[in-house]
């Protein structure tokens, strides 16, 4: 019980909020770039700054789900982790400043999809937390 609480509240929730924020920021920069509010050099360096930390964090989170036995969460996160690993292996994970406009649309879509995905994870997390809280209160009452 206590471990579970730590998992959901201390690890899962903040991590995913961070992922969500990072994805949101990246989408924001990309749309700024599209409407010419930022130059491609700044845009790609700002985005690239967040990419590796996000990949590592996401990978760790996935591993943690596996080791703590949260199978559903693990199954949810593992495809994304695999995709990240694949991008990294192909060396396509960073935004290439010289080609950024050519891939702009695809990158944006990819990030919006990730945004939705992280949001889903957060909803699940919150749901589990609430569930846990209700359960905990219930058991207190008794």
């Amino acid at each position: 019980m206590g471990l579970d609480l730590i998992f959901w509240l201390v690890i899962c929730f903040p991590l995913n909020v961070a992922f969500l924020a990072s994805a949101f920021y990246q989408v924001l920069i990309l749309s700024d770039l599209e409407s010419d509010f930022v130059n491609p050099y700044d845009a790609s360096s700002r985005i690239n700054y967040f990419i590796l930390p996000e990949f590592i964090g996401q990978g760790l989170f996935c591993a943690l789900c596996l080791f703590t036995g949260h199978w559903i969460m693990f199954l949810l996160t593992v495809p994304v982790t695999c995709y990240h690993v694949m991008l990294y292996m192909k060396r396509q994970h960073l935004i290439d400043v010289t080609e950024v406009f050519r891939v702009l649309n695809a990158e944006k879509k990819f990030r919006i999809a990730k945004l939705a995905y992280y949001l889903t994870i957060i909803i699940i997390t919150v749901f589990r937390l609430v569930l846990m809280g209700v359960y905990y209160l219930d058991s207190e009452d008794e």
Partner: protein
Amino acid sequence: MGTENPGRPTFPSRPASSPFGAAQPVTPFSSTGPVAGSEPPPYRPTPPAPPQAATPFSSAGPAAARPGAPGFRPAPPGRFSDPSIPPPPRASNAPPPGGPYQQFPAAPFPPTTQQQQRAPMMGQASQAPPFPASLPAQPQMPFVPMGSPPSQSAAPAHLGPNAPPPTFQPTFPGYPSKQAGAEMQAPPMHSNFPANQGNYGPAPPAAASPFLSHQGGYVPSPPMAPPVGMQQPGSVPPMGSVQGLAEDFNALTMQTRPGTMDPLFDPKELPRPLEGDVESKNLADMYPMNCSPRYVRLTTSAVPSSQSLASRWHLPLGAVVCPLAEPPGGEEVPIVNFAPASVVRCRRCRTYVNPYMTFTEAGRKFRCNVCTLLNDVPSEYYAQLDATGKRVDINQRPELTKGTVEFVAPAEYMVRPPMPPVYFFLIDVSISAVRSGMIEVVANTIKSCLDELPGFPRTQIGFATFDSTIHFYNMKSSLTQPQMLVVSDLDDIFIPLPDDLLVNLSESRSVVETFLDSLSTMFQDNVNLESAFGPALKSAFMVMSQLGGKLLIFQNSLPSLGVGRLKLRGDDSRVYGTDKEHGLRLPEDPFYKQMAAEFSKYQISTNVYAFSDKYTDIASLGTLAKYTAGQVYYYPAFQSAIHGEKLRHELRRDLTRETAWEAVMRIRCAKGVRFTTYHGNFMLRSTDLLALPAVDCDKAFAMQLSLEETLLTTQTMYFQVALLYTASCGERRIRVHTMAVPVVTELADIYRLADTGAIVSLLSRLAIEKTLSQKLEDARTAVQLRIVKGLREYRNLYAVQHRLANRMIYPESLKFLMLYGLALCRSTALRGGYGDVPLDERCAAGHIIMTVTIKRLLKLLYPSLIRLDEYLLKASVPADDLKSVERRLPLTGESLDSRGLYIYDDGFRCIIWFGRVISPDIAKNLLGADFAAELSKTTLGEQDNEMSRRLMRVLEKLRNTDRAYYQLSHLVRQGEQPKEGFLLLANLVEDQMGGNSGYAEWMLQISRQVQQS
């Protein structure tokens, strides 16, 4: 003329016409004469052709009509009486209504006199003969007088000649007065073109004239040729009945040769672009204030009015822009200075003032042609309007009458003071560079160019050399000798001196000269094998980052030390044909992309000269040029004795041509259309802004557009290319090219106005880009598929009304597309697989295709092959008369006669081919005493005899047509393997070779695929 072959094809068809033909054809080009009367026509009207094209419009009512008809046939007049016979459309536009009639009668006489002059015409006319039937097209004339209202014009396209001709005339007059109201004109335009096109079958003669330019001597014949099977149908219908039907029919050039059972294309009838690239004149007539096609060419000079229409045009839709092309014939681009006012622009869409803007309210306001916003005229720019609504000062305002102007940009167009021209040379001095003699050639060439570097007296110059260490040179003007500073710490690069590495040329001139004199001897005994290219690049960047400028890299070996070192790759044949194949054509180390991005940011443009005889990874090095608007020059296995001349010329051209510095380019268009992708050497700084640190007249950029709105409501679409740059003199300028094109609603119009040159340019750039992410095979298939789709859609337009079985149809405007597609697939960049072309050469060829102008690209894809021995031997032909060596031959082995001497010129090199049984004195005279020696060791130099001087003259002429590259001559003897194979035979694109299909077979493949829909 080159068209012996072409000539023949016509032969068969001729019969009908021949009686007439005989008389006139003879006149024009007697020289070749062997052929019977009928042949002459084929002979090539070509050279003259261009002028002709002009004529129709020139006013020459009479001119237009006459030659065609009269020349070849007396018969016409007779036909004429038949009201139904339409006069050739072209005739219609030129002459006043009455004209046609008179002319015909007249025709018979003029033949002798006029014909001579009009030789060109005649030639065409003669081709026409096959069509005697064709005359029918002409009846139109009668209508003309009535001057049909422009309104009709819209529909006409389909109608074919009937409708169009009438419209034709109206438009014409309209021109002068109506310039402003471009919209108005647009519609008419359409109509008239169809007319032209329509002529194919019957009207060919007519057709010819409008299109002359395209046709070349060659073309005309194909249409005729089919006589055997297909032609009959073609010609018959027109006579018979429905004119509309006939027109459509004619509009197609079809060719088939039912041989026995299988459809086969007779190679002699296939269209060949022996005239080279011909710029379309369509728009020049419609919108005389447009910029010249040498600056901007659209793949089709019409914008589809709806997305659904655009989606049926399967070929690329876009533009090819060469913003600094050398203006034609010594014209100068007018420079306009608005000071003290700012540049006049639309306040909403930022369009620059141009001839299509209309002034209203007594001159106080102007309406933007692009976004229709009503703007105030700045008080400094105010002028009254005259009675016709034009500004009274229009004649003093080139920006209101010309499609291409330059504005002087005021301070708000600068982020920093205009930079001076900066040249920095980074030279490899490792042992291989020393041995090849490259250093000496480079040093001498630079020295000889010092006086001609643009931008005196502000020009700055600097040098660095590298092997396993980096050497800088302090050239401070107070020194008498340059001081060499060596940096050997490659991991932590620093610049030994903050200033004085880049110095003002006029101040330090003597130091620079001393340095260049000593450069080649300085490293004479260098035995260093290594190349610290990456660190050297970084240090050059540090030196230049203050100002920007041009960085010229001379690289002779694979970078082996420090950051950016590269591995040998590309020698593994197993990678080809797998999914990893494209990786070989991409930069291996991201360092190069990063450096390129930094270079572009700091306004540095990089030109890479590579010389190695081993693998140098052009794919990686070329990246530097790719994103900085640079260029790649590749001299495989450079030896100064052999290739020195080429390097000298190309480096000189690079250093002395007019260059625009720290430039950005944008192409604007009206709402509803947007440019989506850009192809070429540049870096995008925002979605539609091309950053070009240095750009010159030899670079072209391509872009594709897409429709954003489902339906365009305007009649005319405007494009405006603006290049903001710093001229070498230090003035900030904006070069603006404005172009108006009609918006059309019919697919047929889009095809009619298509521009093969621009399409091929875009297609090849797309194909090269495809090779960077996919296999070569896929890129070739994509090209073929695109062509097939385009032709299939075209076929579907006509499949309903006509029996098309066994025939391949294509629009007149795209008749060379198939051949260029084939040539593209067989070009150095896309050909074969591992064994066919060394990887470096392939990458270098790809880089060339991505930058060159349309003209050069077409020349590269379909080089000229010219027979020289007659010119060399015939003393009677004056040496200045180079006309006889303008006749290009089809690129097939059959064109080569073993008694002849031929020159093959693709714009990058010349190959001189000696036939096996060529007369010995030719060889002796041209090559001197060692004529029997192996040709690879012989270089071509001028000998002291007339024949050799003549050859030199020919070479000089070929080289002078376009100086962007220098054609080094290679000599080859017939049967000298393997040299003959890879130098010449592999490049005869019409012949089948190895796994590559020949022209006839390729056409067959395409036509099969087109028909399986």
